[in-house]
């Protein structure tokens, strides 16, 4: 597990450095895809803090709230109609209550809302320009990533001793495997994302 954490942090660090390098070549692209890079940066900080401080429930809760917001807020801010602005107002109390350690349900709803919005946004991008179409699978993957996070949150929030459960161990391995593949894919596509 500790080897995985080091590997993940290292890959994320290199990914962030590469983003910084390419962003200098085309700053407009960074601006128009702000939420993606903020999310990657937040994931890196989360992973780095885990390495430095170990398992810390306060940091876990903080990042559980920050990660969906880092994607959703820029998307909602960018929309021109009134409904997204109202949804933004709705996210303020939800995220405030979600930061309280005992409010598991609020974090659950935060993820559910974020997931729904990401699905709607990715479907909307499908009907847009070819550039939007290219970006849409990314938001679909973010939504599926949130689904995995919700499932993990629920599994670990059941207050059951999972120590002897073989199957939960399998779930963990599958999730880590998917995360690692996504990170490698991100490395493969990041250059094309900026250059083309």
């Amino acid at each position, binding site marked *: 597990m500790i080897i995985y954490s080091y590997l993940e942090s290292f890959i994320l660090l290199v990914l962030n450095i590469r983003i910084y390098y390419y962003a200098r070549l085309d700053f407009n692209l960074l601006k128009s895809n702000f939420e993606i890079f903020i999310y990657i940066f937040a994931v890196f900080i989360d992973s780095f803090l885990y390495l430095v401080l170990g398992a810390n429930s306060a940091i876990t809760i903080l990042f559980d709230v920050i990660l969906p917001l880092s994607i959703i807020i820029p998307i909602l801010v960018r929309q021109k109609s009134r409904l997204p602005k109202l949804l933004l107002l709705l996210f303020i109390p939800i995220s405030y209550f979600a930061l309280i350690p005992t409010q598991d349900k609020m974090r659950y709803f935060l993820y*559910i809302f974020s997931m729904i919005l990401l*699905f709607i946004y990715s*479907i909307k991008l*499908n009907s847009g320009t070819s550039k939007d179409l290219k970006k849409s699978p990314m938001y*679909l993957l973010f939504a599926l990533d*949130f*689904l995995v996070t919700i499932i993990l949150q629920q*599994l670990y929030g059941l*207050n*059951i001793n999972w120590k002897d459960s073989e199957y939960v161990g399998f779930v963990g391995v599958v999730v880590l495997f998917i995360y690692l593949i996504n990170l490698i894919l991100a490395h493969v596509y990041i250059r094309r994302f900026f250059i083309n």
Partner: protein
Amino acid sequence: MSISGDSLLISLSLILLPALIALIGTLLYSYVIIKRYKKVLGRLFRSSFRGVDTERKRIASELHDHLAIHSITFSEDLNELKNRLQGQDLSIIERLENDFSIFKYKTHQIVEFMYPKVLVDLNWESSLDFLASQLSIGKIRVTFESFADSAPEGDWLYHTYWAIQELITNAIRHANIQNVQITAIDEDGEFILSIHYRATEEAKKWIESNSKFKPGMGTMIILDRLSIVDAKMKIEIIDGVVTHSIILKNENSNI
């Protein structure tokens, strides 16, 4: 540690709810993306018609030009030979001249079928008149009558011409008919081309099967060509007569 059945059920539904949302979201996402790609493929398919039509025009004009250039020199040489030769040699040359005339006639026919010269002029009336005479072969009689004062832009003629040709050929093949009437009218800003023929038993069966099952290649080509020119098509059977109406927008209408 044991947990109650209720809390287990709640926890399971808390996992199932996002899974269900994800399933619906992914299905909708796939539906939208398939719809978009289907639209693109349709557009690509229709644009391939334009490529095929350009190529037909190119082949027809090259065949025509080559035949024109070489037939002049060939005929001159033949005439010179005819003046020099006598008897059996002369009759061989005359036979050769005859064969060459048939070859020229057949090649002209191919050129005409490939890209009718009336289409170059982009005149609706003369083109459809030509089409009617071209399709009148043997016992089959196709006539054209126009009551239209104006017609849409000539660019649309090309696809409509081939669509009508395909439609009439299909009708002759499937409906066992001998008389077809093409009528053009100009009404309320629309240019309507109607194709009428007798509603034989075969015709009724053919139209019924077309409405029930997936259209065949011929019908698909007709519909694709008509969609390029943004035309609508209607089929009606009234008083024992089948009428296919092709309705085009007519910007040149006097209304």
